[in-house]
C-alpha cells in the first residue's frame, strides 16, 4: 500500500509532480547528452589512435627512457623473432588483427632540386600493414582512415607533412593548396646545404631528380655503425599532421627503405606494433605477449597505446572532469528542486502526518512513505531523462556533424553515444534517483519531528 499511496500522492499534485519530473528529466538529459559526447570522445579518440599506433607496442627494454639519446642501442635486433614469439601463442594469434614492425628515426632531409635541407622525423612502416591498421573500426565509428599513398612494391615511396613540404620547398611540385615554398629557397646555398649536396653526389651518383613525376628527397641518417648513410625517397604526397611540430618534420617512408638507411639488411626495428581485433582483451593480451616474449628470452617492454602516448588519457581525463563538474552542477539544481517540491508536499500534509502517527504509525513509517514518493519521483524523472536523452541524441546524430579533437588531423564524426553506453544510462538513472531520494531526507525528517499534537492542529 505504501507504493499505492506514493503514486496517488504524486498524482494528487499532478502539475507540481510533472514540473519536478521535467526538471529532473531535462537536467538528466543534459547529463546524458554530455556523457554521450564524452563516450563518443572515448571511442572516437581511441579508434583514431589505434588506427595509427595499434593497441600494443613492443620496444627493446629502455627505449622509452633512453632511446631518444641512443636509438641504436635500444633498437630490437631481431624483430621477426619478436613477431614469431608473439604469434606462436594461439590465443594471441587469434586476436591479432595486424602485427607489424616499424622504425622511428631522425636525420636530415635534402631537396636536391631546391638545394635545401632540413631535419626530419622519420617513420618507417610496412605500407600494407599500416593501411590495414587504418581500417580498424571495432566500435563502428564510421571513421576508417583513407589509406596512405604507400605500397609495398614501391619501397622508395614516401609521404611527408605539409609543413615539411613547405619548409623544404616542395609545395609547387606537389601542387599543395595553401602552401608556399619558402622565400629563401632561391637564396645561395649555405655551407651545410653544400656539404649535404656533395655527400649525396658522392653516395648516390646519377640518381634521378624525380620518378614518375614525384620529387626526390635525400635522407641522411647515422647508420647502426655510426657512419652517415643516405637513401633517396620519392614523395608521393604531403598530408597534414595533427601536431604542428610533427607536420613540419614528418617523413613516412617504407619500412624497407628506412631499414636500408639505418641497418642495411639487418632484421632490426624500433618497435613492433600489434593491433587487436577485440580491444576489450587489451590488458589480457598484453600480459600474454609479455609472457611469451619473456619465455623466449627476449627482453622487451610491452606497452599499451595509452602508456606510450598519454594524450588519450589526458584528453579523456579532461572531458571526464568536465562531465563530473557539469553533473554536480545539475545535481545541485535537482537537489533544490526536489527540496522545494518535497517541502511543499510536507507542509501540505503535516496534518496527515499527525493523523498517521496518532493512529500508531512510527516516525520511520512516515519517513519511509516520503522516501517512497521521492524515489518514484526520481525514478520517473530519471526515466524521462533517459527517454529524452536517447531521442535527442538520435536526432542529433542523424545530422552527421564532425569535429576535430586536439590530437587529430582528421575530423571525427560528432556523435552523442547515449544509447550505446548502457553504463552511462544506468548510472545516470541511478544517480538521479539517488539524488532525488537524498534531497528529500531533510524535509521528510523535519516533517516527522513535528509533535503529533501540533501536527494535528497544523492549519
Amino acid at each position, binding site marked *: *500500500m505504501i507504493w499505492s*499511496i506514493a503514486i496517488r*500522492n504524486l498524482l494528487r499534485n499532478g502539475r507540481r509532480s510533472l514540473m519536478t519530473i521535467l526538471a529532473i528529466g531535462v537536467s538528466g538529459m543534459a547529463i546524458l547528452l554530455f556523457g554521450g559526447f564524452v563516450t563518443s570522445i572515448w571511442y572516437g579518440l581511441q579508434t583514431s589512435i589505434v588506427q595509427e599506433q595499434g593497441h600494443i607496442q613492443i620496444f627493446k627494454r629502455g627505449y622509452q627512457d633512453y632511446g631518444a639519446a641512443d636509438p641504436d642501442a635500444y633498437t630490437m635486433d631481431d624483430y621477426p623473432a619478436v613477431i614469431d614469439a608473439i604469434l606462436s601463442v594461439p590465443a594471441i594469434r587469434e586476436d591479432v588483427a595486424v602485427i607489424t614492425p616499424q622504425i622511428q628515426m631522425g636525420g636530415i632531409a635534402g631537396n636536391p632540386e631546391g638545394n635545401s635541407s632540413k631535419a626530419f622525423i622519420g617513420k618507417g612502416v610496412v605500407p600494407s600493414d599500416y593501411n590495414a591498421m587504418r581500417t580498424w573500426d571495432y566500435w563502428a565509428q564510421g571513421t576508417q582512415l583513407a589509406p596512405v599513398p604507400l605500397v609495398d612494391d614501391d619501397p622508395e615511396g614516401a609521404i611527408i607533412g605539409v609543413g615539411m613540404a613547405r619548409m623544404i620547398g616542395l609545395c609547387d611540385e606537389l601542387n599543395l593548396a595553401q602552401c608556399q615554398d619558402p622565400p629563401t629557397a632561391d637564396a645561395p646555398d649555405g655551407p651545410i646545404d653544400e656539404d649535404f649536396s656533395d655527400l649525396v653526389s658522392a653516395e648516390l651518383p646519377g640518381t634521378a631528380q624525380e620518378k614518375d613525376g614525384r620529387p626526390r628527397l635525400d635522407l641522411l641518417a647515422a647508420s647502426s655503425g655510426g657512419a652517415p648513410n643516405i637513401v633517396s625517397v620519392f614523395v608521393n604526397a604531403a598530408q597534414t599532421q595533427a601536431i604542428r611540430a610533427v607536420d613540419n618534420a614528418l617523413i613516412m617512408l617504407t619500412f624497407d627503405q628506412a631499414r636500408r638507411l639505418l641497418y642495411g639488411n639487418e632484421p632490426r626495428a624500433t618497435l613492433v606494433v600489434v593491433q587487436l581485433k577485440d580491444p576489450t582483451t587489451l590488458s589480457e593480451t598484453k600480459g600474454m605477449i609479455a609472457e611469451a616474449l619473456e619465455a623466449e628470452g627476449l627482453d622487451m617492454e610491452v606497452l599499451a597505446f595509452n602508456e606510450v602516448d598519454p594524450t588519450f588519457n589526458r584528453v579523456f581525463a579532461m572531458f571526464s572532469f568536465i562531465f563530473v563538474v557539469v553533473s554536480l552542477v545539475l545535481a545541485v539544481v535537482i537537489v533544490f528542486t526536489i527540496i522545494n517540491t518535497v517541502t511543499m508536499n510536507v507542509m501540505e500534509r503535516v496534518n496527515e502526518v499527525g*493523523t*498517521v*502517527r496518532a*493512529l*500508531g504509525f512510527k516516525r520511520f513509517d512516515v519517513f519511509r512513505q516520503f522516501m517512497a514518493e521521492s524515489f518514484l519521483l526520481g525514478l520517473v524523472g530519471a526515466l524521462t531523462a533517459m527517454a529524452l536523452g536517447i531521442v535527442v541524441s538520435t536526432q542529433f546524430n542523424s545530422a552527421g556533424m564532425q569535429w576535430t579533437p586536439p590530437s587529430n588531423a582528421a575530423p571525427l564524426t560528432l556523435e552523442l553515444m547515449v544509447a550505446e553506453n548502457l553504463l552511462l544510462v544506468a548510472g545516470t538513472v541511478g544517480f538521479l534517483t539517488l539524488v532525488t531520494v537524498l534531497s528529500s531526507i531533510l524535509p521528510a525528517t523535519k516533517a516527522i519531528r513535528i509533535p*503529533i*499534537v501540533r501536527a494535528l492542529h497544523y492549519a
Partner: protein
Amino acid sequence: MKSAAPQTRGTTDHVAEFSGVSKSYKTGRVKFQALRDVSGRIPRGCTSYIFGPSGSGKTTFLNLLGVIDRPDAGDITILDTPVRTLSDSAAADFRMQHIGYIFQNFNLIPVLNAVENVEYVLLRRDLTRAERRDRASAYLEKVGLGELLKRRPGELSGGQRQRVAVARALVGEPSLVVADEPTANLDSRTTREIVDLMRSMQEELKTTFVFCTHDVDLVTGPGSLVHIVDGQITHMERLS
C-alpha cells in the same frame, strides 16, 4: 476474518487513571496551563464524556489519554501501563495495539478510498492483504457504508466520512477509543446519527469510548461524565 473482540489488557475496572497530571503549552512567550493537577479514572467498557467549555482542557486531557502527548507532571496509567515513560516508538506501538482515534475533522487520508482508509491502520498487523481488506469491509458494513467502500473522502458527506473514521478507529479492535469532538463539524441530524452509531458500536464491541464535547445534549447515559473547567476536573459522575 479474525475475532472482533476488543483487545483486552489490564484487570482493573478502569482503563485509565490520571494522578496529579499537569500540562502546559507555550505559544510564543505565553505559557498556557491546559491541565492542573488532574486526577481521576476512566471506567472500563462504557462511554465516558469529557465535557467542558472551549479552552477548558478537554482536548489536552484526550491527547494525554490517547498517548499522543505527555504530561509535564503527574502519572498516567492506561490499561495498566504507565505511559508517561514510554519511548516514542513504544508509545506508537501502544496506540497501534490499544487505542482508536476519532478526530473532529475526520482526518481521513484523502488519496485512499473508504475501505483503504480503514485497512490502512491494519498495515502493521500480522495480517494478509485479503484479511485486512475483509476486516475493513466488515467494519464499514457495521457503520452502514457497505455500499461506499470505493468512495474517496472527497466523495463522501461529513457524516459518511465520520462513519469511515469510526470504522477506522474500531477495526484494530482497540480497548479504548478516544474521540475529540467527533460531531463538531456535523449538522444536528448527522450528529445524532454518529453519536447513536458510536453508542451502538460500544455496546456491541464493549470497547471503552471516551469523547470530549462541549455540547451538553450529547451527554446522555449510560456512561460517565468528566467535567473539566479551566484545566481542572470539577466533578465526575456516573450516567445511567
